[in-house]
């Protein structure tokens, strides 16, 4: 059934309206509608674009903020880790220091207590025993002073004073310095100094301390009857090597990684502060070089110092 009822204007159905417009050629209305529709679509697209841009901005902003927070957290964790490592090193140093100082203090206390005990006895004071006690107190005070002096040297951060150093001459001087003690211990010192060794730019007093410490270490490792061989040679690139080999007791594989730790010592109580090698390590690092050790129990140890010919001071 067809709808024959005529539609009044404003009452047309949509298909009817299109038909009416097409039929009656109301092109202006079509144009207006198209413009309105176009504007509506443009507005909609603009809104969508603005929304998308806003969202993108927010996302990028949030990502940047998250990255900044993550960076800050990482920095904090790094700082905490560094702090923990510092505290661990400090704890280790303090434990070593407490042990090294408390032992001589314990003996000083004993000697004083014993002298007091002797003085309170009714019989006359045994002067020989009293003098022995007082001498022991002085000895233990000196031992404590040596520890604190070494510790101060270890902690001091003086900048190296760079000058031309004739290493062969410096090594010869240090060997002569310990000659009396090596003779007493029946230790032969062999020097193998490269004649073509170039002079290096370094700090002579600091290097003297290193060579002396290494020679003392070698003598203590041998104790009596043995050989220390000290050699110098140029090496690549632009560096020189100093090697000190001893035929001493050697160091076990387990202890070798700890040999440069402050207060680490394999020597009997009172015979070493455990600071000599850690001082050497600190100085050589400051002079831009490296110090390594190879050792075998019962056969001896070789300390190898590598130094640059031209010093680039390193702040440590």
């Amino acid at each position, binding site marked *: 059934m067809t709808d024959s009822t005529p539609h009044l204007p404003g009452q047309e159905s949509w298909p009817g309206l299109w038909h009416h417009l097409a039929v009656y050629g109301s092109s202006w209305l079509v144009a207006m509608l198209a413009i309105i529709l176009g504007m509506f679509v443009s507005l909609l697209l603009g809104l969508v674009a603005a929304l998308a841009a806003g969202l993108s901005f927010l996302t990028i902003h949030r990502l940047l903020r998250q990255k900044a927070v993550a960076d800050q957290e990482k920095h904090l964790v790094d700082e905490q880790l560094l702090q923990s490592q510092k505290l661990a090193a400090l704890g280790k140093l303090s*434990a*070593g220091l407490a042990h090294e100082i*408390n032992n001589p203090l314990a*003996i000083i206390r004993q000697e004083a207590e014993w002298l007091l005990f002797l003085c309170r006895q009714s019989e006359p004071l045994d002067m020989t025993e009293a003098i022995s006690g007082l001498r022991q107190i002085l000895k233990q005070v000196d031992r404590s002073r040596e520890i604190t002096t070494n510790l101060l040297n270890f902690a001091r951060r003086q900048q190296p004073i760079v000058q031309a150093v004739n290493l062969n001459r410096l090594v010869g001087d240090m060997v002569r310095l310990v000659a009396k003690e090596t003779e007493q211990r029946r230790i032969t010192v062999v020097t193998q100094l490269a004649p073509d060794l170039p002079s290096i730019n370094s700090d002579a007093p600091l290097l003297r301390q290193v060579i002396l410490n290494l020679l003392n270490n070698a003598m203590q490792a041998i104790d009596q009857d043995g050989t220390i061989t000290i050699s110098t040679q140029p090496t690549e690139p632009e560096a020189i090597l100093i090697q000190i080999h001893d035929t001493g007791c050697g160091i076990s594989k387990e202890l070798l990684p700890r040999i440069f730790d402050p207060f680490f010592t*394999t020597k009997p109580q009172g015979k070493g502060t455990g600071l000599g090698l850690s001082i050497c390590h600190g100085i050589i690092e400051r002079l831009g070089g490296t110090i390594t050790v190879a050792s075998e129990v019962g056969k001896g140890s070789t300390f190898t110092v590598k130094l640059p010919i031209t010093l680039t001071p390193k702040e440590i």
Partner: protein
Amino acid sequence: MPTGPSILLVDDEERFRQNLKKMLTAHGLTVTAVGSGDQALAELAKQPYDVMLLDMRMPGLSGLETLAILKKDYPETEVIVLTGHASVDAAAEIIRLGGFEFLLKPCPLEEIIAKIESAYERKLARQERPG
């Protein structure tokens, strides 16, 4: 105490060992002194001791290693650890391994004697009430 405790003193610092032995002997105590953990275990294999004064940091067997072996093989000996560097961790480890007490060097002789007496009393009490 009917008779004094037998004491085994273990310390690698010779002068400290000699002095402490001399001072404890002067106070009427019986002391044997050795310089290492290995020597201490060898001494314990020969005869029992009531109280051991044990240094913590020694070459060879450390104080803690000696204490661990001693508490397994000779649990009846009470151990007082002498140390130059006490820490909470070390103290906890000493007690965990069965040590009676620890003393920080330098400490007064009276304190050492008082700890020896306490340790000996605990040993006697444990003998009277086994388990």
